[in-house]
């Protein structure tokens, strides 16, 4: 459960970072269109809110605290990738999405 919620949180902040012109340009070598930015922001908000909802529903107030901690870790990881490991951001994003799928499937099957 923690893995799914953390990956969702990470995915959300990844979306927020990509929605910024400079970070998007660093990764894809071009500026994002306004539509792309909006889509990224919508996905980011859905992902991060879903993470919060799952935490609070499953673990109550304790989950809210965990969510705050995971937000910090997510921002730290995203900042590291976008400033020091820009070349790996695409791979990281794919792995992040795969992690959400695998942990979600694992929970659903369990």
């Amino acid at each position, binding site marked *: 459960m923690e893995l799914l919620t953390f990956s969702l949180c990470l995915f959300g902040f990844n979306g927020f970072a990509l929605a910024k012109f400079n970070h998007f340009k660093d990764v894809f070598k071009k500026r994002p269109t306004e539509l792309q930015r909006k889509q990224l922001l919508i996905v980011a908000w859905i992902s991060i809110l879903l993470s919060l909802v799952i935490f609070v529903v499953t673990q109550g107030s304790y989950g809210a605290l965990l969510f705050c901690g995971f937000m910090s870790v997510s*921002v730290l990881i995203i900042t590291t990738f976008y*400033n020091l490991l820009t070349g790996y951001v695409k791979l990281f994003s794919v792995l992040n999405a795969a992690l959400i799928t695998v942990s979600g499937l694992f929970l659903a099957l369990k």
Partner: protein
Amino acid sequence: MKDSFFRSMTWLHTWVGLLTCWIIYVIFFAGTISFFRDEINLWNQPAIHNVQAQTDRVAAQRMQIVKGFDYLSHHGAGSNSWRITLPEQRIPYLVYGYAEPKEPGQRRSKFINTQLNPNTMQELAPFVDTKGGSFFYRLHYQLYYLDAITGRWVVCFASFFMLLAIISGVVIHKRIFKDMFSFRRNKGVRSWLDAHNLSSVLALPFHLMITYTGIITLIFMLFPYPALTTYDNGMRGFFNDVSPSNNVTNKAQGSAAMLPINNILDQVYTKWPGADIRSVRVSEPNMAASTVTVLVDPGKELRDQTPRLLFSGATGELVDQSADELTKSKALYESLNSMHTGRFATPLLRWLYVLGGIAGCVMIATGCIMWAKRIRERSKGKASFGLQLVEGLNLATIMGLPLASCAFFIANRLLSPTLAERGDKEVTAFFLAWLVAGVIALIKRDKLQWRVMAAINALACLSVPVVNALTTNGNIVSYLIHKQWALFTFDALFLLFSIMFLVQTEKLRTAKNNVKADSLKPSTHQKGE
């Protein structure tokens, strides 16, 4: 005060931050370490290093309590207080203790404790006198070498300043979300500002929560007036009212045999099936007025007061108990308090707390370094007394505290176990090492001194696991092999810090002497300072 709200906020952020940053750094540093209070206690006591965690810990509790009552009936027959402290997930040993009669003028009774291995029920080797994690815990909220109440007032004021600095920092940092994931390296003061902003933003909920709840933990000292006006006997009356207390049997006279403890435990397990009992306290054993208090683990509940049941020791009657459902005000107070201490935290959340604490330390350190760098750039080589003072305090505090902490742990291993007041000597080692850093900072505060301090810290951090390996039966490799994770992580962290300080030494050696003065483009954050 400046002529606009924004400039006023910038002024406020700079000065409330600068005036208290060093004391706040000490509070954050010690508080962050205190999240590992039990692990430090474990590392500081070699006698319990090889005690394995019980696999059937909760199931064995009844037997441990019953044996404890037998033990204390024999050894603490004349005592007015018994205490059985059961092993917990982070505390692997069992303690049976009884109070010695108080000496005239003594405020609290001294306990004679016997520590046992819960797996074998054999007595452990004598414990060494150590302050352990409690030193950092007390340093965090009441400082040291100060009267406890004075220390707490200082911490409270510093916390207020910190809260003001955080709020005003959010207000003045207009690009807080635009710059959220940005860190520009090798850009002089701009890099320091980015590091300051990043460490602030990435754990902003934590910074706000920990500072606000920190003030709440001392709220009854700061704001005692409602209790003072409501209760005839002031705060004592208030605390008695909110804690389960013995109002039933305390007037009973004469002696009375203790009821078998199994009778009381049956009632506990009926109310809380599968309860994880933390401790059992007996007051006035073998008297008609005796009480037995059973405290149980609250689990992940955000409450500060441990749930408890209070029984008459002579009749087994339930005398009082902690409330199952808290009133809204009490629930709010308890949840805020427990959020600050994080006692309920599982290892995952504990590490997240530590990450927040480290971010707080980085935020404070980068803030005070950045201020000094900016003023030095503007002063063009002529450093005022104020700037020299700030630079000196920066070096002494930021680099001195890690050195002092290493000295504390090395002293724990090198001091003779039979030395009188050994625990106090560990503390002396801590402050002496800090004094050395202060003296270095007093002489000069240039890049060279930072480099020297980084090199000393690298050596000191490396010395902790090395000295541990030379003075005890274990070392980082054996901890890994035997899956003693707390001890392994402790040593591994010091090795990691040692590497980080080595990297810092190297970076300081190769860094250019002069960063471009124009590296920091004018920003709104900068203008007011």
